[in-house]
């Protein structure tokens, strides 16, 4: 039995809180660098490599390297596996998951993730034909062809691998299900992203603040339009009942599965309604993730931050949004580099997508509390007999946001204290900011693919049509217009030599 009774409920039993604990534990370990101790230098990371060079004379050091320690790269990779598996297994134990199945499933997902990550770093996939600071890696390495996807190629490989398992190897997908937790992995990555944002805020304070404030304003405007329009479409054009329309409107227009469940609860709907809508959201979020990053990068190459914010308002579920933001970031940075020879700093487009989504997530508790009051007092007309407490806002609040804020603001506070502290902190958290965050994103891509089964769309024709219509006619155009109004002209800072 799992009920929420106190404000501390779920602190040791939910993925949301465990994203905070795992993220902050690793961040705390990286802070030991301030005392001159490197506790995260074991983290492995892939190298960019070239096929003929590695097959002709294989060495692990051509594929992998460590973040800090002078270890054999394969030993560092094993240490990475042991540390993350151990931390996540502890979380799984507290969440009352089957730990043996979790570890077995996570091991398969981990190995697949790294396989995609290493293969995706092959030069013919990543290297971009552009000259930066007098160097052109593509030409210097004598490549005759290349997809020039930048860091986007490992993400695409991870996503495709997961989808193949989820749709064509269903027994394996069922075996992996205990460990296929995209929300847990992405929320942990978002806590790491808080450290990134701290570092980015130091470099471009005004830009970061503008991103935060315009993100909040854009989200507020989007809320005003999305929900009433989708609700009206569901009621008038599709003749759905009130409860199903409300849950669908939240799922489609606010933050996907979490909004569908929160709204279902707020209006006291039978659980089958948010469960059905959630299945639909997970599948459509995957379609959005597959289509939108490439489409935005191709159609609007000069609006990186607008594209990121529009993604944050359009793509549902935290996992799919952050994954789409990361993919968009890599694709746009590579395309801009190829077209102009200018290298945008990575992370800003992703941050615009994530910040916008976080505002949406934060508001869901307040919105559903208001909705619950409307339902009790206006729809069910039972004032006096039934009441809803403001604790509902807290129970529905996305807790990983707290980890994100703690990481962001504490990094900023420590780094602002002195130039020496800033340098030490930047070096000490480098493993967390890059390879660890990337690995959690990669795990998310694989896990999302594993849990996405397109065959579940069967029998959902009418609801799927409503979803597609609302997305194409209401959500995507309004999101892009609002993002354009608030973010137009914003460009990521350039990488300086």
């Amino acid at each position, binding site marked *: *039995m*799992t*009920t*929420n*009774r106190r404000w501390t409920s*779920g602190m040791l039993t*939910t*993925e*949301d809180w465990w994203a905070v604990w795992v993220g902050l534990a690793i961040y705390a370990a990286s802070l030991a660098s301030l005392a001159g101790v490197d506790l995260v230098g074991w983290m492995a990371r892939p190298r960019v490599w070239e096929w003929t060079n590695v097959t002709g004379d294989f060495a692990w050091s051509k594929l992998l390297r460590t973040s800090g320690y002078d270890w054999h790269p394969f030993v560092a990779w094993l240490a990475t596996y042991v540390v993350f598996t151990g931390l996540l297994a502890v979380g799984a134990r507290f969440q009352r998951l089957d730990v043996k199945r979790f570890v077995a499933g996570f091991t398969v997902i981990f190995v697949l993730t790294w396989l995609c990550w290493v293969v995706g770093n092959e030069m013919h996939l990543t290297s971009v034909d552009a000259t930066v600071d007098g160097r052109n890696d593509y030409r210097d390495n004598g490549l005759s062809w290349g997809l020039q996807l930048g860091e986007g190629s490992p993400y695409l490989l991870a996503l495709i691998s997961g989808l193949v398992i989820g749709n064509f190897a269903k027994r394996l997908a069922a075996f992996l*299900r205990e460990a296929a*937790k*995209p*929300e*847990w992995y992405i929320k942990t990555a978002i806590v790491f992203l808080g450290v990134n944002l701290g570092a980015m805020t130091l470099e471009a304070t005004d830009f970061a603040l503008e991103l935060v404030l315009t993100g909040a304003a854009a989200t507020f405007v989007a809320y005003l339009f999305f929900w009433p329009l989708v609700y009206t479409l569901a009621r008038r054009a599709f003749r759905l009942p009130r409860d199903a329309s409300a849950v669908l409107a939240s799922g489609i227009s606010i933050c*996907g*599965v*979490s909004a569908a*469940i*929160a709204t*279902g*609860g*707020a209006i*006291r709907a*039978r*659980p089958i309604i*948010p*469960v059905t809508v*959630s299945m639909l959201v997970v599948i459509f979020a995957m379609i959005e993730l597959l289509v939108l990053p490439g489409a935005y990068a191709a159609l609007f190459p000069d609006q990186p931050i607008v594209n990121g914010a529009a993604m944050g308002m359009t793509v549902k*579920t935290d996992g799919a949004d952050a994954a789409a933001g990361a993919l968009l970031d890599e694709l746009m940075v590579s395309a801009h580099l190829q077209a102009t020879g200018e290298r945008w700093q990575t992370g800003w487009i992703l941050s615009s997508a994530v910040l916008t989504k976080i505002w949406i997530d934060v508001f869901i508790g307040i919105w559903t509390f208001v909705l*619950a009051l409307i339902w009790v007092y206006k729809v*069910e*007309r*039972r004032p*006096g*007999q*039934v*009441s*809803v*407490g403001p*604790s*509902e806002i807290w*129970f*529905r609040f996305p807790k990983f946001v707290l980890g994100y804020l703690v990481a962001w603001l504490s990094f900023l506070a420590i780094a602002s204290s002195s130039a020496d502290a800033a340098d030490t902190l930047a070096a000490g958290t480098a493993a967390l900011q890059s390879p660890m965050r990337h690995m959690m994103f990669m795990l998310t891509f694989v896990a999302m693919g594993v*849990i996405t089964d397109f065959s579940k769309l069967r029998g959902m024709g009418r609801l799927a049509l409503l979803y597609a219509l609302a997305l194409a006619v209401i959500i995507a155009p309004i999101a892009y217009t609002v993002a354009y109004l608030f973010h137009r002209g914003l460009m990521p800072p350039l990488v300086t030599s």
Partner: protein
Amino acid sequence: MTTEGGGRRELVLSYERGQWRARGAGLDVAHADLAALDTLIVRAFEGAEPSSVHVRFDMGALPAWLRQYQAHYFNYVLRVGRGTGTHDGREARP
């Protein structure tokens, strides 16, 4: 009747085989309609002193894969006891 937390009654709500089910405080009632279930709960406490019953949804009643997205469905409070009555006219047979 058992009570918890300084006279505060608590019921655990779940959804099983197409029915809402509330258990706790010596009560075990089920109904397909939640408002009608509330009526059953209010009736069960009809002769008692006016008080509140805290109804908390058991997340175990939702599929496990959903809980990573949202770990809360809903809680609410029912006013029960003398004078609170049931005036919504809903059918409420367990």
